[in-house]
């Protein structure tokens, strides 16, 4: 018997036990779904936190029924204290940026579909992959544990600026164990993320099947690959930063804490450190992080739009080069978060230049998306609606970035709601729309059931209009100088703006409620949705060549051979107006 016939393409035998199949699974598809479930849990928590925040802002003295159950000291009698507002704000940001926006578009969909789209049977390192998810889950648990320590979650925001985050409980409630747990959670998250990026990169470079050149990879695959390169270097910097922060907090070092500080009447026993050092380290990670959040969404939206438009984009290569350009430039702009931070003002001008320049690839991509719509045969589905919505939101969010990129304007707009509006538009809406679009698009493949299209479209309309109602007004408030991270608006110039905040709160609660439609659709369709054919959207990429859901080893031990680029649409073929990538047929 020839051992050569033993298909070593199988990295691992099919799992048999429940634990191996659904819990500690090596299968990238299961891991992708696990990431998605975690992101779903995190986004529900993050959204609830935002409702609590919005309610408190417009009714600061009203008791919120039940809140005292979450924290007796943070909300005595249900009335939120200012420090608890800041705790919720911190947890909202941390959950959303790390556990939703890094997890869902990148880890969830990427893990599920990257190997399939390149014709591999799994990721390069399945055990690292499993470790990566479970470490992310552990990080999540550590973070959530901060809710239950006596002093509550940290109050320093997701950005955790020193010295507020570094000196310990003297700085305020939540700055004791809560902040330490935060640092530990992020530390673990970094390691998990690095393992994940490792997998994505090695898999993309080494496990592509025959005929799958880099140029033939779908745009979403490219996006995941570029994102993983960015993530590798970014999280590798946040990791030491969190370590140094933790040492300042628990070991008495002074990396970020200067001398002579008097906090809560205590002279702090530190000296010589630099709060700006934390900001540099954090934002060196933090800015690439936001591109980690948006690039996969750009890739997913491109993929879905092409399929819905029944034609490829005006240029495949340009889009990919633009994504690479954005990834590269993302490492040069971090100082734009620090224009008025006390950094050398000349540095501010230096950082402003690449910040403005990064508009160029983003504009090219937007124009290519728009230009590709021209003359297309656009099919309207829930997925394509969210993809179109992404385009609208990306423009809205991108345009406000142009203001903030200029240091002189930033003097006025820094730390106002203008900034909050900007990043919510791009991250909190556009990237989320990418996740929604991906969900509606890939749900049939992942579960074998179709989602309810009508409910999906209703979900889109309510969310599209709702999020504009929430986040557009943030920009107006910012122009008026409305400062951010305030738990209440008591200043003379802020009180007249409260009616606008009330409108926003109602919009937020309404839009939040509309997400129940999505949740219902997700769960109901999972069990009762119409059975999904292998290729309901008539899409060309490799995931649509297999049954819905795919078998555990994706291609059933076959070696897929790829003959075409990923977007053979608008051709005359046996299947219709498209050609699958693995179809030997020539158009």
């Amino acid at each position, binding site marked *: 018997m020839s051992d050569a016939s033993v298909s070593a393409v199988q990295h691992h035998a099919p799992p048999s036990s429940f634990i191996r199949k659904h819990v500690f699974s090596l299968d990238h598809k299961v891991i992708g779904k696990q990431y998605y479930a975690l992101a779903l849990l995190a986004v529900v928590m993050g959204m609830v936190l935002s409702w609590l925040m919005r309610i408190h802002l417009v009714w600061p003295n009203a008791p919120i029924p039940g809140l005292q159950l979450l924290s007796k000291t943070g909300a005595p009698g249900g009335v939120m204290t200012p420090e608890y507002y800041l705790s919720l704000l911190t947890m909202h940001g941390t959950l959303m940026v790390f556990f939703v926006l890094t997890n869902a578009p990148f880890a969830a969909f990427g893990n599920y579909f990257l190997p399939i789209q390149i014709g591999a049977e799994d990721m390069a390192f399945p055990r690292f992959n499993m470790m990566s998810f479970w470490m992310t889950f552990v990080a999540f648990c550590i973070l959530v544990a901060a809710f239950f320590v006596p002093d509550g979650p940290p109050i320093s925001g997701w950005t955790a600026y020193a010295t507020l985050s570094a000196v310990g409980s003297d700085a305020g409630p939540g700055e004791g164990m809560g902040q330490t747990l935060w640092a530990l959670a992020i530390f673990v998250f970094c390691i998990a993320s690095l393992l994940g990026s490792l997998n994505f990169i090695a898999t993309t470079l080494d496990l592509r099947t025959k005929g799958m050149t880099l140029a033939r990879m779908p745009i979403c695959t490219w996006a995941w690959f570029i994102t993983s390169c960015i993530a590798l270097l970014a999280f590798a910097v946040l990791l030491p930063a969190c370590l140094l922060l933790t040492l300042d907090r628990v070991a008495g070092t002074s990396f970020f804490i200067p001398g002579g500080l008097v906090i809560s009447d205590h002279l702090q026993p530190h000296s010589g450190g630099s709060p700006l050092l934390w900001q540099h380290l954090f934002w060196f990670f933090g800015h690439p992080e936001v591109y980690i959040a948006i690039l996969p969404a750009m890739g997913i939206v491109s993929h879905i739009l092409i399929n819905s438009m029944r034609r490829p984009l005006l240029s495949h290569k340009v889009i990919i080069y633009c994504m690479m350009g954005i990834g590269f430039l993302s490492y040069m702009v971090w100082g734009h978060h620090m224009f008025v931070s006390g950094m050398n003002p000349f540095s501010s001008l230096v950082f402003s230049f690449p910040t403005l320049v990064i508009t160029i690839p983003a504009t090219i991509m937007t124009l290519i998306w728009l230009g590709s719509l021209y003359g297309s045969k656009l099919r309207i589905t829930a997925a394509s609606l969210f993809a179109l919505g992404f385009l609208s939101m990306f423009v*809205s969010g991108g345009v406000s970035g142009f203001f903030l990129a200029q240091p002189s304007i930033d003097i006025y707009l820094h730390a*106002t709601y203008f900034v909050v509006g900007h990043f919510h538009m791009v991250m909190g809406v556009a990237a989320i729309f990418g996740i929604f679009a991906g969900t509606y698009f890939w749900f049939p493949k992942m579960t074998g059931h179709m989602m309810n299209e009508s409910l999906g479209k209703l979900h889109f309309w309510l969310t599209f209009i709702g999020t504009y109602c929430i986040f557009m007004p943030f920009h107006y408030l910012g122009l008026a100088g409305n400062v951010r991270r305030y738990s209440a608006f008591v200043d003379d110039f802020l009180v007249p703006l409260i009616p606008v905040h009330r409108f926003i709160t109602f919009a937020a609660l309404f839009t939040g409620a509309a997400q129940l439609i999505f949740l219902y659709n997700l769960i109901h369709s999972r069990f009762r949705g119409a059975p999904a054919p292998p290729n309901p959207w008539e899409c060309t990429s490799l995931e649509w060549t297999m049954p819905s859901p795919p078998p555990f080893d994706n291609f059933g031990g076959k070696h897929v051979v790829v003959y075409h680029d990923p977007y053979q649409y608008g051709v005359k073929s046996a299947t219709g107006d498209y050609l699958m990538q693995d179809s030997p047929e020539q158009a």
Partner: protein
Amino acid sequence: MGKLFAVIVIVIALASAIPIITHHWFWSDISFAPPEDISTHGHAIDEQLSDTMIEAGLSFLAAQILLGLFVWKFADRKPDAEIKTFPGGARVMVIAALVLVGTEILALGVLGQKAWANVYFRPAAPDALQVQAQAGQFAFYFRYAGADGKFGTPHPDKIDEGNSNFFGLDPANDVDSRDDIVTGELAIPVDREVHLMMHSKDVGHSFYVRELRIQQDFVPGLDLSVHFTATKVGKYEIVCTQLCGLGHYNMKAYLNVLSQADFDSWMKQKASEQ
């Protein structure tokens, strides 16, 4: 439904533009306009802001309207409709982006330098009024040098808020600090440059006066400063914009711009209160 999308996206885009153009929250009298600029350097910033608003606003409207138009025209077409390519294809888009954004960047970036340089690269005038500001959880305090024109040395270990020794001065041993004037409000004479030296007692804070078009963080351990000239008498809010703890929302002081005469009598009165 494609046509519905087109209509809605254009309506939203136009509706979003209304508060920008009218500076008001639709038909209410809530104003969004930045307050009147009372500084000497602020007009450059305001110009920058309105130039950017025009460019960004036009780009925003153009993109959203194009999106709506294309979706209107090309969604739900007949299955046998012909697929067309935008004239010029990707090359036109790349060139358009490079030209449009490139010129915007050059214009705004180059012009913006001056507005920034005015604030940060011009040193304070040698005869500017020197005032020290200290930010701490959760209040601002200000110190004037007093008759001797010298500031006493602050000692963090001597800070005693209960006895109003916010700066930790040691008048018993430090002659210079004996006539220092410490206040909770920042009073300055109109039309005179002020050099504000900024020190943080504990964590990061920020000094933000909208009307002055000034914002600068206080960084623990760093000696930072801003300088400005106020051109209009009045009372303006100084608010903290760097998250500093539970009292962040409430941390503020007043900038009181007075005529020279009023300022002198204010100083006399404060000196007597020390």
